[in-house]
C-alpha cells in the first residue's frame, strides 16, 4: 500500500498546532504564490484537481466554487462545515487539533478564489476542547498578520446532528432553528443572510494548500480517475488499532483495515462493515473483501462512501441491536420538520426495539420496510432517505438475524 500524507502531513509533528512549528514545516508557503494567480485561475486548478467534497456527499468542489459570483454587490462568505456528528466519523477534529494552520491556509486560498472577506467555521457543540485549539491558532494567525484582511470567526453549534446539513447549518449560523431549507430550482450558491456563500467541509479546504503548492496533476496522481486524491479514512469498532489514517481513494477496504487497523481485534472473524459513517448502509464480510474505497465502488453496491469513517464489526455482533442503536440516534436527531422523517424515525426505532425485545412478528419486518419506503425521497433533506437506505441495507443482508429474533 502506497503511503500518502496530504492533509495529515504534520499530524505526527509535535506542537504542530502552534504557528511557529507549523511554519517551520511549511505552513502558509502557498500564500506567496496565491496573488500571482487570478481567482478564476485558482478555481480552474481546483476543478482540474478533481477535488471532491469530503463531508460525505463527494460533490466536485471546483464546480461549487464556480457558482460563487466574482462580481457581486453583496459580500460573499465562506463557511467551513466542522459540525462533524456522523457516528463513526472523527477526522475533521484531527485537522483542527493537529494542523489548524493548514485549515486556515486553505480558508485564505478559498476566500481569495471566491472573493470572500469573511469565513465562519461552524463547529459541533460537543467539540469545545477542539475549538479551543483552533481558536488559539486563529488568534496566532491574527497576531502574525496572516488573518486580518480576511476574517475567520468560529461559531459553535448547539449539538444538533442536522446542522451538518449545509442549509440547516446556515439557518443555525443565522441564529435560527437548524432546519434544512427547500432546495433551489437551479444550481446556485448557498445563502447566508441573503449573501452568496460557499459551504465546504474542513478536510476539503485542508486539501486545497497541497493542490496550490503542487498542482492539480500532483493531486490526481493519487486516487482513481473519478475519485482523485486522498481521504482521511478512519476505523472504529472491532479492530486492533482504531484511528484516522490518510489513504488514497481506490485502496482495497480489507488492505486498509489490515494494514492500518492491524486486523480484527482478538483474531475474531469479520462480520460486517459500515463503510463511511452511520448513514452509509452496511455490507457483509464477503462484500468487504472485494470493495475498493472510492465513491463509485460503494455506489455500485447501493451504499455510499460517506466520510470514510468505517465501523468494523466482528462475528459476535448482533445486527438487530446495531440497527436499533443507529435508529435510536436518528430518532433523537431528526429535526422534526418533515412529517415522514419526524414520525417515521420514531416508528422504525420502536419497531426494531420491539423485534430486539423478542416481541416482534414477521409483519413487523414487512412494516419496517414499508415505512422505510415511505421515508425515502419525500423529504426536504437526505436525512430520511439515508435512514431508509440504512434499514434496507440491514434487512437485505441480515434478514435472517431479524427473523431469528422474532
Amino acid at each position, binding site marked *: 500500500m502506497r503511503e500518502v500524507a496530504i492533509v495529515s502531513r504534520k499530524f505526527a509533528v509535535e506542537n504542530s498546532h502552534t504557528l511557529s512549528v507549523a511554519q517551520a514545516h511549511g505552513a502558509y508557503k502557498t500564500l506567496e504564490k496565491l496573488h500571482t494567480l487570478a481567482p478564476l485561475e485558482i478555481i480552474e486548478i481546483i476543478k482540474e484537481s478533481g477535488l471532491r467534497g469530503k463531508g460525505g456527499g463527494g460533490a466536485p468542489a471546483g464546480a461549487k466554487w464556480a457558482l460563487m459570483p466574482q462580481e457581486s454587490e453583496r459580500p460573499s462568505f465562506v463557511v467551513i462545515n466542522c459540525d462533524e456528528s456522523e457516528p463513526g466519523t472523527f477526522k475533521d477534529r484531527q485537522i483542527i487539533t493537529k494542523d489548524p494552520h493548514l485549515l486556515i491556509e486553505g480558508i485564505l486560498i478559498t476566500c481569495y478564489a471566491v472573493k470572500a472577506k469573511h469565513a465562519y467555521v461552524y463547529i459541533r457543540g460537543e467539540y469545545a476542547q477542539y475549538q479551543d485549539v483552533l481558536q488559539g491558532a486563529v488568534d496566532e494567525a491574527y497576531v502574525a498578520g496572516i488573518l486580518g484582511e480576511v476574517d475567520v470567526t468560529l461559531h459553535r453549534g448547539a449539538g*444538533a446532528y*442536522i446542522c451538518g446539513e449545509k442549509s440547516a447549518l446556515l439557518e443555525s449560523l443565522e441564529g435560527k*432553528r437548524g432546519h434544512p431549507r*427547500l432546495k433551489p*430550482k437551479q444550481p446556485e450558491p448557498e445563502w447566508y443572510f441573503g449573501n452568496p456563500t460557499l459551504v465546504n467541509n474542513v478536510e476539503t479546504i485542508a486539501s486545497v494548500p497541497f493542490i496550490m503548492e503542487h498542482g492539480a496533476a500532483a493531486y490526481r496522481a493519487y486516487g482513481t480517475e473519478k475519485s482523485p486524491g486522498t481521504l482521511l479514512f478512519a476505523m472504529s469498532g472491532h479492530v486492533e488499532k482504531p484511528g484516522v489514517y490518510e489513504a488514497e481513494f481506490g485502496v482495497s477496504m480489507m488492505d486498509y483495515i489490515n494494514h492500518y487497523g492491524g486486523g480484527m481485534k482478538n483474531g475474531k472473524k469479520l462480520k460486517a462493515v459500515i463503510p463511511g459513517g452511520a448513514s452509509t448502509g452496511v455490507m457483509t464480510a464477503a462484500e468487504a473483501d472485494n470493495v475498493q474505497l472510492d465513491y463509485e465502488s460503494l455506489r455500485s453496491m447501493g451504499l455510499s462512501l460517506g466520510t470514510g469513517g468505517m465501523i468494523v464489526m466482528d462475528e459476535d455482533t448482533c445486527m438487530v441491536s446495531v440497527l436499533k442503536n443507529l435508529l435510536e440516534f436518528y*430518532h*433523537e*436527531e*431528526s*429535526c*422534526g*420538520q*418533515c*412529517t*415522514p*422523517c*419526524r*414520525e*417515521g*424515525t*420514531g*416508528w422504525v426505532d*420502536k419497531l426494531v426495539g420491539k423485534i430486539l425485545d423478542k416481541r416482534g412478528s414477521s409483519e413487523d419486518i414487512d*412494516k419496517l420496510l*414499508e*415505512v422505510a*419506503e*415511505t421515508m425515502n*425521497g*419525500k*423529504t*426536504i433533506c437526505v436525512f430520511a432517505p439515508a435512514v431508509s437506505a440504512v434499514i434496507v441495507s440491514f434487512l437485505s443482508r441480515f434478514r435472517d438475524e431479524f427473523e431469528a429474533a422474532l
Partner: protein
Amino acid sequence: MSEMIEIIVDDKTYRAEEGSLLIDLLIREEIKVPYFCYHESLGADGNCRMCMVEIAGQKRPQIACDTLVKSGMEVNSKSTKIEKVHTDILELELINHPVDCPTCDQAGECSLQDLYMDYGLHDAKVTIVDKVKHDKKVDLGSNVMLDQERCVLCARCTRFTDKITHTHELGIIGRGDEAKVSTMPGRKLDNPYAMNVVDLCPVGALTSKDFRFHQRVWFLQSAESICHGCAKGCNIYIDHNKMKYQDDVIYRFRPRRNDAVNGFYICDEGRLSYKELETNRLESMLYDGVVVDEHEAIAQYKSLLTQYQGRVSVVIDANLYSEEIEAIVAYAERIGAKVFAPLECYNDPSFADDMLKSAQRAANYGAIVKMGLETNMPSDAGLIINFNHPTHFNAEAEIHFSTHKQESNALLLPMAAFSENSGSLINEVGLEQWCEKAVEKNSPAPTVLSWLEKVEG
C-alpha cells in the same frame, strides 16, 4: 407579470402564470390536493409533504407547494402511486396524534379528519401504544389554547407571528417527534391579531378559549357579513345557531377571505365584537324608565313630534345600513326635521394600526361621507330623534331608537342589530359591501324600516 403558459393536470389543460406555484393552480382550479402547511398568505414551507404530485420526467413525486409551473409541464395528482403516497404520509401524521376527536373542538372543521376521509379510511398499521406525550392544555395567551399532542407541526402559527404580525411570540422547540409549538421563554402570545392562529391551525392544536366547548361546528350556520368594529370593512362569517327551545345565538365571528379588504384575517377586537350583539340588548319599549306597549309608544312618539314641530333634529349612527340611512333622510324631509350624522365620536386614533384597524370606528363611515350629510352636532334641538347614535345629546326631549339599553328618560325604542337585518355598507375607502341577515330572534326587535312604517302609519 410573467407569461401565461399552458400545463396539463390529470389530462386537462390549464393556463397559469409561468413560475407561479403549482399548488396555487390546483387550489384555484379546485383540483383536490391534500396539504397542511401551505397557506396562500404564508407561502410554502414544504414541511408536511402531503401535497405530492407526479410530474412527467421527474423520478420522484414532488410537492406542489415547491413546484414552479413551467410550460408543457404534465402533472398527475390522482394516480394510484400518488394516492398511496398521500395515504402513507397521512398515516405517519397520525401515529402520534391522540385521535381524541370526540373531545376536540376542531372536529368537523379539521383538515386531519377531512384528509382521513379522503385518503385514509384504513385500519391503523400502527401498533405503538406509547405515543409521544405532550401538554394538552397550554394557555398561550390572547384566548388561544394549545394542545401540543394534536399539532401536526405545520408551522402556520409560527410563520404567522413571524411574517404577518412580526411579533415572533411562537416557535417550535425540540427535535424529531418531540418537537412542539411553544411561546418563547417568558413570553405570551400577545398581539392584536393573535386569534387568527386558531383559524390558521388546520387541526385542533390551537383552539379559541372564547369559542371552544360552546358549540359543535356542524350545528353552526354561517352568514356572510361585514365586521362593524371600524370602517375597514373586514369580511366575516357570522356563525350562529338556534338550538331547540332556545334563541338564535351568535357563537363567533370568523374572517372571510377578501383580498381587496382584509385578506385572510381580522383583528381580535373585531372578532370578539359579536359579544356586544348578545349582551345588554334593549328588549322593551320604555318611556321615562317605564315599560310601555307599542300602542302607547307610538302615541307618545306622535305627541312629541307634534309638540316640537319645527324644532326636530334627526341623528343617524354611521353603523346603520345605507338603505336605512336613506330611508331616515327621506323621513326627516317628510316631517321637516334637520338631519345630523356626527362623526367626531367615532374617531379613535389609539385603535388604528397599519394592518387592518382603522381609526374611524363606524362601519358605514363611507356612506355618511358619500351622502354629504351634516356631520356637526345638532344645535337648537327641541326634540332629537336618535337612530342608535352613541352620543348623548342635550335636548328638551328625545326619542331614541336603540339596539342596547340606555340610562335615559327618553322614549326608548328597541331596534334590530346589524346581524338581525341585511343591508349594504361603504367602507372608509368607498368600497360598497353587502351584509346578509344572520340571526332570526324569537322576538325580533323591529328594523329601522319597519319602525318608520309604524310611526308614519
